[in-house]
């Protein structure tokens, strides 16, 4: 049996059913959402077990073969993304069970969340430009709504900015797809890739620029990042975790990788553009994060900075660089989601996100404090946590590509990361507990559960990085390194 359509069908179906459950007791939506998310989280692992390493699964909708029909493609890269999306999604749902109690209309929230999952799963599975656009829109529009879920002035403003910039990105992408369709007469990515081989033209370059800008906005790369520091902090914490941990990767980085490595083909010019965008993001995000006094804004800027690392690694284009980038993508989804969940727990218990109003929280919130410390150490690249290995691989990649200056800059940026996370930890969890905070209680069980699982993942990925590298990451690296052979793999011949 082919499992691929389930990744889209299950969340889509759940989204509609769960909204209908809205009139009934809250617990039913909790249970339904959790079960659906759990199934989704297990499915990618079944796929890993049932498929050989490097095997590519193609599913043609309604048995219409590509390039005319619509197809879903599962290769190493999509598999990695599916794991990230669905596991983090499941943990965010579990976390939401307690966290979203203070909001009304929980079932609507779950419905939007499920739509967002649908969109992201669709984006990473589809083998077709137009569907990529459609699914990206599904995910994006549900995320606009989720950012505004609190319906306070601040959230609405953030959502509005996010929506405007997101729409511009969508327009650019749609325009670019239109151009490609005009040039090649096909929307299937493999087919387009095969057709444009070797015929460079100005229009093709123009479409590349449009894609780069459009998905650059989605991936929040400097200078296209400005929506992120507003949008991510305004969303409810589990949604922030999804946005920062998963959404920008699925909609932004994944699409960039797929289009530029597998359809257009990677070249030196792109390599430099990627690395420069990456460096800009690393330093811009890091420097700004250092100055934030709002916990979630700090995390948002840090996301920009860490995305920069991923893009920088991809820009290297060699084995270690790509491996490091993909590993960092996986790691970032674990520790950044965890950090956002931590910030949610703090907000839930303390009621504020201002760094200067907190301090010494580890004493009253031990689980949050400990997991947040683990996540901070991981993201700062302290051995033996996972972030250390991925940053190390990226630096190895840079050195192998003879970009010594960039390697040194990456190391310095890593120090910068450590600096602002130490600052964050010192101001929130360490230090002296303020008198008025002594009565604070630890977050509820379901929230603690998600945080602990993610912390275990951070440590586990750090210690068992080798098997993870072999089983999950290397097939994905292979896909990117094979580049434009993608077309022949999908279409045969």
């Amino acid at each position, binding site marked *: 049996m082919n499992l691929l359509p389930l990744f889209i069908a299950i969340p889509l179906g759940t989204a509609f059913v769960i909204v209908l459950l809205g009139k009934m007791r809250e617990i039913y939506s909790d249970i339904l959402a959790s079960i659906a998310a759990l199934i989704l989280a297990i499915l990618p692992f079944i796929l890993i077990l049932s498929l050989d390493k490097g095997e590519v699964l193609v599913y043609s909708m309604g048995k219409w073969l590509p390039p005319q029909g619509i197809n879903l493609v599962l290769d190493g890269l999509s598999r990695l993304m599916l794991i990230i999306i669905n596991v983090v999604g499941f943990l965010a749902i579990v976390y939401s069970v307690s966290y979203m109690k203070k909001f009304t209309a929980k079932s609507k929230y779950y419905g939007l969340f499920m739509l967002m999952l649908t969109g992201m799963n669709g984006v990473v599975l589809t083998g077709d430009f137009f569907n990529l656009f459609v699914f990206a829109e599904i995910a994006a529009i549900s995320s606009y709504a989720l950012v505004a879920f609190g319906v306070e002035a601040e959230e609405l403003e953030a959502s*509005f*900015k996010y929506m*405007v*910039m997101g729409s*511009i990105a969508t327009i*650019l992408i749609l325009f670019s797809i239109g151009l490609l369709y005009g040039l090649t007469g096909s929307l299937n990515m493999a087919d387009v890739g095969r057709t444009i081989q070797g015929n460079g033209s*100005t229009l093709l*370059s*123009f479409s*590349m*620029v449009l894609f*780069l*800008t459009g998905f*650059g*906005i989605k991936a929040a790369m400097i*200078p*296209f990042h*400005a*929506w992120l*520091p*507003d949008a991510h902090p305004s969303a409810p914490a589990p949604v922030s975790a999804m946005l920062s941990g998963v959404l920008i990767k699925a909609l932004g980085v994944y699409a960039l990788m797929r289009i530029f490595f597998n359809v257009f083909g990677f070249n030196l*010019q792109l390599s430099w*553009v990627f690395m420069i965008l990456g460096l800009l993001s690393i*330093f*811009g995000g890091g*420097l*700004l994060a*250092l*100055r934030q006094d709002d916990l979630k804004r700090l995390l948002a800027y840090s996301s920009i900075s860490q995305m920069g690392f991923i893009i920088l690694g991809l820009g290297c284009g060699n084995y270690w660089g790509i491996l490091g980038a993909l590993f960092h993508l996986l790691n970032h989804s674990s520790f950044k989601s965890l950090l956002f969940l931590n910030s949610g727990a703090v907000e839930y218990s303390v009621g504020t996100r201002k760094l200067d109003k907190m301090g010494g929280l580890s004493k009253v919130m031990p689980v949050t404090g400990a997991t947040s410390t683990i996540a901070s150490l991981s993201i700062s690249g302290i051995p033996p946590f996972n972030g250390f290995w991925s940053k190390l691989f990226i630096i190895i990649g840079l050195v192998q590509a003879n970009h010594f200056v960039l390697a040194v800059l990456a190391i310095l940026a890593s120090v*910068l990361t450590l*600096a602002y996370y130490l600052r964050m930890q010192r101001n929130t969890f360490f230090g002296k507990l303020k008198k008025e905070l002594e009565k604070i209680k630890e977050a509820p069980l379901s929230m603690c559960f998600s945080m602990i699982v993610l912390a275990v993942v951070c440590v586990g990925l750090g210690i068992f990085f080798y098997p993870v590298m072999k089983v999950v990451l290397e097939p994905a690296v292979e896909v990117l390194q094979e580049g434009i052979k993608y077309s022949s793999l999908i279409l045969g011949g």
Partner: protein
Amino acid sequence: MSSNILLYPILLPLIAGAVCFLLSKKWMKEVLSLVAMLATFILAIFIFGSEELIFTQAWLPILGGINFSLRSYHFSSFILIFLALFGVLISLYSVKFMRGKERLKEYYAYLLWTIAASSGAILASNLIVFLLFWGALGLLLYALLSLGSYRVATKGLLIIGASDFALILGVLFLYHLSGTLEIKEIGSIPLNSALSIFAFILLATGALAKAGAMPFHTWIPEAAEKAPLPVMALLPASLDKLLGIYFLYRICLDFFHLYPNSGLSLLLMLVGSFTIVAMAMMALVQNDLKRLLSYQTVSQVGYMVLGIGTGIPLAIAGGIFHMLNHTIYEVCLFLGGGSVEHRKKTTQLNKLGGLARMMPITFVTFFIAALSISGVPPFNGFFSKWMIYQGVVELGRLGGGGNFWIIWLLAALFGSALTLASFIKLIHATFLGTPSTSQPEDMGEKARKLGFSMALPMIVLASLCVVFGVFAYRIPLKLFILDSVAGVPPSGEWLGWWRPGLTTTLIIIGLVIGGVIYLLSKVKLFREDTSYIGGEEASPEMKVSGVEFYDTVRDFSGLKGIYGAAQKKKLDFYNWGMSFCQAVAWVLRGLDRLVNYVWEGLASLVVLMGRGGSRLHNGILHTYLAWCLLGLMVLLVVFLVL
């Protein structure tokens, strides 16, 4: 006898020391320590009584099979006996002396462990095992000295630690030269290559530092003032000498072969002679009983080093014998000093005086020991020095070394005279004369008594001084020394034939006759009166305390500068090392500051850039969209134009 017996002198004090930490009552620790020391002593006698024993146990198989091997033979087992004997005596002495002091638990534990580690170092038959125990001794020295002062303990540890490092390096070279770690299999490596000479010097450095010869002695006088007195009696006065000189002997005669008048032999003799004279000179001007004694113990090491350094069997035997005698009288002296301290709570010479009547036992034993150390016949110190002199003269007859032997001989003789002089001062200031006015009040009647436990060790040691001197041939030489050193000619063929028995008899007869004459003629003719000082009333301020006896020595031209420098610790290698370290630290700190400024500059730059970035994020959507547009334009230029 099973060779397992070799393990017991190590294990027994080790375990007893650990148990000390568990015992709560004071008397239990005292009894335990005493019993364990006695048992070790008896074990040592058994080991001495048996033939050569070898114990081997495979150990550390990963490191290529290093054996945990122990070996006892005549020399090592006689040293073991004396180790344990001093353990017993000092343990006994401590019962009363240390009562009421702080950290008693640690004191007894470290005492026992020191005996355990010393036994291990003496018995070890594998170089690694030896280093293990030897290193443990360094740590225990720190632990024991820290009971008095952490500063001095640190100094001691650094000096001993540095020399231990030299020793380890030496052992590595030795292994390279001989190809084995088993001490027994290392035999007479010729001293003809640079590596072997370097190895010899490194090993000798370790041994000399342990024995406390110059220039590794500087911690001893400082420790004497600060550390508990039994610790001084145990370590610098006895165990360190036994271990250091034993090991020096092994180096010079077993590992390598030191020929008379070879370069290294001259070096050792130079170190020895210089130590004798310089330290005796230093002792001369000390005004504290314990400091004076500690300089004397360093001075006496010189004789042993000189004796072994000659390479003449007779002098070597003399050096070993002197080591034995030295430990006996020096411990006796230290314990005597301890009794004075116990009673008067001070060892400042100008605050003491006239104690002979109050403390007869201490006075007599101290006096005997002082005569021994000064080399007055018929006591033991004389005999061993006599052997060394003969060895040096024989060296001169051997020829080949120029006329240097005269210098060594003169140094040894002169040192002996200086020692006597310093003890005249010491005994006068402490026991004779009139009591000082600034003397602290006596304690109550009960505390004043020496008691059995403090008196017995001193009496035993003083008797040993006499017995080892008068019956030198029959007891110590025959039992211990002559079988340990190969090639000593039979006593009849010695250059200067000395009959201690006859001499003693003559001395006694002389004394008796003198006494008879005195009693017969003058006994009724004398009267006792206060000193006559030109008709003046003798006031207490006019007392001659003896402290200033040799102060003129300080003013001799030439010596003046040296004494002044020594006073300011300018001649202390430790201080040189420390100054060097400070200079290095200063330079490093400068570098560190420099790097720090660079980083701080970087940090301010980062903050500044962050501030600029923040200003750009003004929250207005138009601005943000403008950036996007700008980015798009740049990309267009990059892809379409370039």
